[in-house]
């Protein structure tokens, strides 16, 4: 019975939120305000009991640090008292005259986290990625060779079509000429594909890795701020943005899945709830 009741509460709130898809309405407003209040209370309670109680009040007042007794006035005791005092200093904000004292704990907080990040970021985000990015351009097997070559063939095809058709406006009047140019471009593109396949097949060059390196340099160039993106820099930055967009597209496609999974989860919940009335 309780299960059904609790599930019903959850189901009704679920429907309240879904009503927002139609338009803003009092049911949604109710659910919205309720969850803001409940979750704010939830986090206040959880953080108080998980941090302030075990790290400050327990050791300072009951001399109990993680289940072990500590000495009043000892090192552990002071180490527990310090964050408590710093935390209280935050509340000076409520008194405008001394509000500036609140910056002391903030300084420790901000500075402490700032310093913490520098070296691990250098290691994980820069050095390790640099190491992984050092891929040989030849002499290694290339499992993606075919796809890379197809892609490069397509790039050649599009480039030729663009140059002949759009840039020079050759086929603006004549449909036959247009078709001919596209066919020519397709032929050139296919030729490129065959030639590149022969190259990578012979192990002369690992085109996938070439692409990885060029893409990496391009993306980095895009994030150059102190120089104008012209000349070589402009070309590289343009390549970079192309890679970025393909990467973002991939993220988007991937993400869609997650979102639908969530919806499936909720729909499953509602269906189970309806089922409860019939079982």
């Amino acid at each position, binding site marked *: 019975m309780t299960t059904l009741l*609790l599930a019903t509460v959850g*189901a009704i*709130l679920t429907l309240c939120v879904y009503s927002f*898809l139609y338009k803003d309405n009092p049911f949604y*407003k109710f659910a919205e*305000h*309720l969850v*803001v*209040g*409940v*979750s*704010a*209370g*939830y*986090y*206040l309670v959880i*953080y*108080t009991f998980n*941090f302030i109680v075990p*790290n400050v009040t327990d050791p300072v007042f009951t001399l109990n640090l993680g289940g072990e007794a500590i000495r009043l006035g000892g090192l552990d005791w002071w180490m527990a008292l310090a*964050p408590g005092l710093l*935390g209280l200093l935050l*509340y000076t904000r*409520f008194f405008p005259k001394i509000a*500036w004292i609140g*910056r002391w*704990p*903030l*300084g*420790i*907080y*901000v*500075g*402490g*986290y*700032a*310093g*913490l*990040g*520098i070296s691990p970021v250098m290691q*994980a*985000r*820069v050095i390790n*990625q640099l190491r992984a990015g050092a891929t040989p351009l030849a002499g290694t097997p290339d499992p993606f060779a075919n796809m890379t070559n197809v892609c490069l063939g397509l790039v050649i095809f599009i480039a030729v079509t663009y140059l002949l058709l759009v840039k020079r406006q050759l086929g603006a009047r004549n449909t036959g000429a247009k078709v001919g140019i596209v066919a020519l471009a397709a032929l050139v593109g296919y030729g490129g594909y065959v030639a590149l396949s022969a190259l990578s097949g012979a192990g002369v060059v690992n085109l996938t890795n070439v692409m990885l390196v060029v893409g*990496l340099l391009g*993306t*980095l160039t895009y994030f150059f701020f102190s120089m104008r993106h012209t000349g070589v820099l402009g070309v590289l930055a343009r390549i970079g*943005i192309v890679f*970025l967009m393909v*990467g973002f*597209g*991939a*993220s988007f*496609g*991937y993400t869609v899945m997650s*979102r*639908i999974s*969530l919806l499936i*989860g*909720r729909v499953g919940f509602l269906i189970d709830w309806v089922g409860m009335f019939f079982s």
Partner: protein
Amino acid sequence: MRRQLPLALCFIFGVFTAIQYYVPHFRVQWFQERLLQWLMTLLAFAFLLGTVSLIKVHYHKLRDRAPDRGFSLVVFAGLFTMIGLGFIHPDHHAPGSPFNQMFLNVQVPIEATMFSLLAFYVASAAFRAFRARTLEATLLLIAAAIVMLGRVPIGDLISPKIPEATRWILEVPNLTAKRGVMIGVGLGMMATALKIMLGIERAWMGGSD
């Protein structure tokens, strides 16, 4: 005292947490562990600040007879119920505790449902904003469409080339682009962190002087 001291604290603690990365000695690591606890504890103290702000905003709505002020009472009801239950029954995660029940049956369903709205919004964004206006936008939507097909069984059914192309997109252009962003963002993160420590970025104190 008003500006120098917080900046000095910021610098000293920043340099300490930066240096400890290279010092495995237990005496330094011991203090480092304590310091991490301090930081989390400070955040815990700040939750009261936030909660007071929330209460103030809604109290002002009630006082000023703002439209929809009735819902401010709903906020209070939720907030004080949770705080009350949380302090009366400190065993928060016990399966039957009222605090946990409120969490599981009020907060969780609403949040999960909010989250699942994304499925609808993804569809409407795809229809509304996915336009092949420029080369970049076209690439984005083609990559998205291929990956979307390649990650579900139906892609395998249409053509085995689609999952292959998906893998290629994920592991060649996507990988290298993400790596570039990662390096760039890494540098930006380090630079910002450094500038905070050195007192160059001091917006966190309010104002830049």
